[in-house]
């Protein structure tokens, strides 16, 4: 284990090999693929910016969510978002925004949030399906690696005592207190549960709901899509889970930033995480 250069004022510390090379490679592959899937997915949503429940979109029931452009009281265009029939004006962000050149953009999600930026459904689908393959193959490789290298059992599965002390971990998270020293070598219990629910619930669900939208895959076992409530329900689930993954990413990045940004970034690139041997709990970072 290589020791870090230590300056006089810093507490004693050393670099601990925390993330193996396969985990690091698959982490960043997953990050890139999911980001592109999310942004190209928002673009595909723009082609028909409404969500429904059931088999079809034209069932006589109104959509659950709808983002559109309509005329305002003074004849101007406004962007609106309707959720369960309640309308919110979302001009500037949803339903009506601006392209980088200042031209009005009447699509649901703004150009800066989508891939590609300029409207092209066919190109967005190409981006989406290419990176869907990378994402799925990477995910399968990760699950196999995690099982056989015991990454799953060793690093991700919470122990009984961890689960019993989950209350203390919740309090620590609320207080933005993060483990240091020996404890920082392991994931904490909330972190483990968050990673496990993303890996084994949200990601499989988003894949399944994506497959459920394919008319050809529907025909493999006719009717299997009904398990998700029908094709349009599957589309709604796909959309919701995509945003739950975005929420996970936001919390994940927040936690990385407040618990030692560069240390985490280094450990996910080189594998080495700095452990301070002096301090017990470091609440300031």
């Amino acid at each position: 284990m290589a020791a870090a250069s230590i300056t006089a004022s810093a507490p004693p510390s050393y670099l601990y090999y925390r993330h193996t090379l396969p985990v690091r490679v698959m982490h960043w592959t997953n990050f890139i693929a999911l980001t592109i899937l999310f942004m190209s997915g928002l673009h595909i949503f723009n082609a028909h910016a409404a969500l429904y429940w059931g088999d079809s979109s034209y069932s006589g029931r109104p959509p659950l969510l709808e983002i559109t452009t309509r005329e305002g009281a003074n004849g101007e265009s406004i962007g609106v978002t309707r959720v369960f029939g309640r309308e919110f004006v979302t001009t500037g962000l949803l339903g009506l925004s601006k392209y980088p050149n200042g031209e009005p953009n009447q699509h649901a999600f703004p150009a800066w949030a989508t891939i590609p930026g300029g409207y092209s459904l066919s190109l967005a689908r190409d981006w989406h399906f290419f990176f869907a393959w990378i994402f799925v193959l990477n995910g399968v490789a990760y699950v196999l690696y995690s099982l056989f290298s015991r990454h799953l059992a060793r690093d991700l599965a919470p122990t009984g005592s961890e689960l019993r002390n989950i209350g203390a971990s919740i309090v620590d998270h609320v207080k933005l207190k993060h483990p240091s020293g020996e404890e920082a070598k392991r994931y904490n219990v909330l972190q483990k549960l968050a990673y496990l629910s993303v890996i084994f619930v949200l990601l499989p669900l988003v894949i399944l709901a994506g497959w459920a939208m394919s008319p050809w895959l529907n025909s493999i076992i006719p009717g299997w899509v009904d398990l998700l409530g029908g094709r349009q329900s599957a589309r709604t689930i796909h959309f919701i889970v995509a945003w739950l993954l975005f929420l996970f990413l936001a919390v994940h990045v927040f936690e990385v930033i407040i618990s030692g940004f560069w240390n985490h970034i280094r450990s996910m690139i080189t594998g080495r995480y700095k452990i301070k041997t002096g301090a017990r709990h470091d609440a300031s970072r």
Partner: protein
Amino acid sequence: MTPRDKSRRRLLLGAGGLGAMLMTGCDRLSSTEWFPKVLRSSEVLSRGAHQLFSSRSSMAQEFTEADLSPTFRSNGTSMPEGEAYQALAKNGFADWQLEVGGLVEKPVKISLTELRAMPRRTQITRHDCVEGWSAIGKWTGVPLSSVLAMVQPRARARYVVFHCADAMGGSLTPEYYYESIDMDDAMHPQTILAYGLNDKDLPIANGAPVRLRVERQLGYKHAKYVMRIELVESFANIAGGRGGYWEDNGYQWYAGI
């Protein structure tokens, strides 16, 4: 510069580079010649995987009368322009004839009356548009396989091309809508030439007199206003060469996804 500064700088460049690549680089990549081709390579993977996990005649889900959409949405062309089509429509398509030719032993011309007299199939299926919406309709028509049995495809025939009456774009030289499917889809029991929707004659808005139903693929494969069917070995020399109007405009030929 200490080693630590160096590693920080590397990390900063790495993180910045990653962000820049994702946010602005994607559009630059999209506009290159080669990158869209890389992206498009997934079409082969998806189609291959779908065929691996399904049989040639895996059936699309069929629904009940209770599931029917109150009105079946018309998308794309709802009234083809052009005098020839208008004249056919005015006469209730009594003068319409479906030409079936190309790589076949016995080319034929079939009238609507003759088509209606052939054994029919009725199916309540879900229509999935590439845009994301779905609608459920009850389709009545003649299995394409029966029509192909009449004309006897030659061994070289690999694709069935549908030439349509709707002129797209409206420029001086009209590009007519067309589509193509492979022989597996052509022989599939649910692939029909539909002349009825929800127990009535197929409305003009939905493709009268006849439209294709190819139930395991997205809406744009279901060619409306079919005038002529041609069996070919390759569609490389037809229009833009990609096997369909939307395919010529960037969409995937395989629309099972």
